[in-house]
């Protein structure tokens, strides 16, 4: 019996109908507001009344705004804690839990660890802020432990010291992000054919080699998705900084999203805030495109 291997163009058109609800929603909730925001970036506006057109003035101000450039440089540092570290740790932990722990101690143990490590993702960020504020305070548990083991000299004012605030916030972010990467990678591991591992085992490959030559290449789709989403999240990270340090001390942890929040809602310089948001969005899009190209190249190589 002849099976149609290509769909006729008439049939294909009906597929477009399925895109309709999503399209309407997207245009209304994302596209139109983004265009409005773009337009606002050329105005001076207090959020109430009529915006006043000012041309490129906001963008000119941006170029000489030290806070803005500082926030951009901090973003790069947050990429480390939001993307690179969680992905690496997530991979190792996923492999460890899925292979080793599941084998040695059973499914329940593995699930238990995964659930526990995912918990930080569930916690509302406002709660995480309060709790970590207690832990990282000068009289908090980190310093208590350091003093107890004789490393009292290393005790710092973690969130209040401009040198240590960013690493401290990064620590909290890593704590939150690991769970996401872990869960995704573990789910992905479940679709890899165990026969591949057996074959490698018979060839004498150790755990590390199996990880490198089989797990990582086959987990590539998950890795790409996780890296891309965490990268985007890093570029617009807001909540942890809002809750832990409010951009401080002395702007040490300022990021573009916090700066836009500050100008949108506190100083009510809406036009200026809009321009920062535009720059931020363009940079994010640019990075995403570069990344997707890279992903396509890798896929093409196989």
């Amino acid at each position, binding site marked *: *019996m002849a099976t*149609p291997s290509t769909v006729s163009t008439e*049939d*294909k058109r009906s*597929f477009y109908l*399925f*895109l309709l*609800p*999503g399209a309407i*929603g*997207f245009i209304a*909730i994302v*596209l*139109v*507001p*983004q265009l*409005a925001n773009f337009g606002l970036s050329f105005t001076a506006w207090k959020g109430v009344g009529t915006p006043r057109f000012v041309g490129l003035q906001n963008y000119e101000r941006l170029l000489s705004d030290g806070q803005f450039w500082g926030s951009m440089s901090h973003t790069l540092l947050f990429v480390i804690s939001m993307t690179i570290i969680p992905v690496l740790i997530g991979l190792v932990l996923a492999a*460890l839990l899925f292979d*080793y*722990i599941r*084998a*040695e*101690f059973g499914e329940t143990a593995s*699930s238990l660890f*995964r*659930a526990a*490590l995912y*918990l930080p993702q*569930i*916690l*509302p960020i*406002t*709660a995480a802020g*309060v*709790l970590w504020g*207690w*832990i990282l305070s000068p009289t908090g548990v980190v310093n*208590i432990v350091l003093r107890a083991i004789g490393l009292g000299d290393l005790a710092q004012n973690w969130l209040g010291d401009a040198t240590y605030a960013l690493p401290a916030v990064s620590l909290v972010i890593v704590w939150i992000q690991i769970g996401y990467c872990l*869960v*995704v*990678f573990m789910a*992905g591991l*479940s*679709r890899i*054919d165990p026969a591949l*591992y*057996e074959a*490698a*085992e018979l060839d004498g490959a150790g755990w590390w080699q*199996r990880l490198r030559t089989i797990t990582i290449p086959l987990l590539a789709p*998950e890795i790409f*998705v*996780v890296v891309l*989403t965490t990268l985007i999240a890093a570029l*617009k990270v*807001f909540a942890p900084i809002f809750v832990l340090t409010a951009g401080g001390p002395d702007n040490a942890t300022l990021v573009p*999203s916090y700066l836009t929040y500050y100008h949108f809602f506190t100083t009510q310089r809406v036009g200026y805030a809009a321009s920062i*948001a535009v720059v931020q969005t363009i940079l994010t899009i640019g990075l*995403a*495109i570069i990344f997707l190209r890279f992903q396509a190249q890798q896929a093409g190589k196989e």
Partner: protein
Amino acid sequence: MADIAPYSNQRTETPAAARDMPRRSPLRWLVLGLLTVLLLLVLFPFFLAVSNAVKSSVDYATNGPLALPTGFDFTALKKFWDVADFSRKLLNSAIISLVVAALGVLISLLNAYAIGIGKVRGSRVILVVLLLGIMVPQESIVYPLYYMAKASGLYDTQLAVIIIFAVIQSAFGTYLLSSVLSSFPKEIIEAAEMDGANRWQVLWQVVVPILRPSLFVVGTFFFIWTWNEFLIPLVMLVSNNNQTVSVAMGLTRGQNMSDPTLQAAASLLGMAPTLIFFLIFQRTLTRGVVVGAVK
């Protein structure tokens, strides 16, 4: 998010590591020990929330946040529950998160069906444009959304928040589900079409049953993410009766004062529902996927 393929065999056999007999005993306990230490470190802040939520204010004032409670005092928990009208906030958060999860999954599914299986022209472009939905910082769309909500009479309604988040989350869901569906076995679909099913029927009677675990995973993420959102609910929901749990938590920080045991109580109560939700649906994540019909 996971590119969960719904048709490969589930890995139920014990992995190769189990058969490394000689290396067994000492190493496994070491690894377990290290992982347990990691576990305790990760869970420590939660312990803080629990311990401080049941402390009396005097206990906290005397011993600080890190000491174990000297007794159990549920005043903070009760106070937060009453003052914040917590049962109402729970209901609001639950409704909003559930509907967003369902609606978001639905929109993602419809989009992904067209892109992953229908392979409509411009799929690539659509996906990239959708990613824009994930990339926008929320602050940049709040003012326009506010004016739109006011104009349509939806300001201070849960419906506004639901629509906004269903769309935002579905950007991610579409991206994910379409990559899963793009490797969906054509034969199953073609078989159904041979039986005379139209596109709609194929979706609901063939694709969805197989895709169900992935849908649950995506829905679970949506629920949790929406539950913890606070900027847009803070701005869009004005009346106390409409507000969500995350907004209510701001109640514990007054203009000049903040009550620590109250904050701990709020943290505990605020995360308990998502915790329960997650633990229930954890098993779907474990199960991973369902065996395909073809093999």
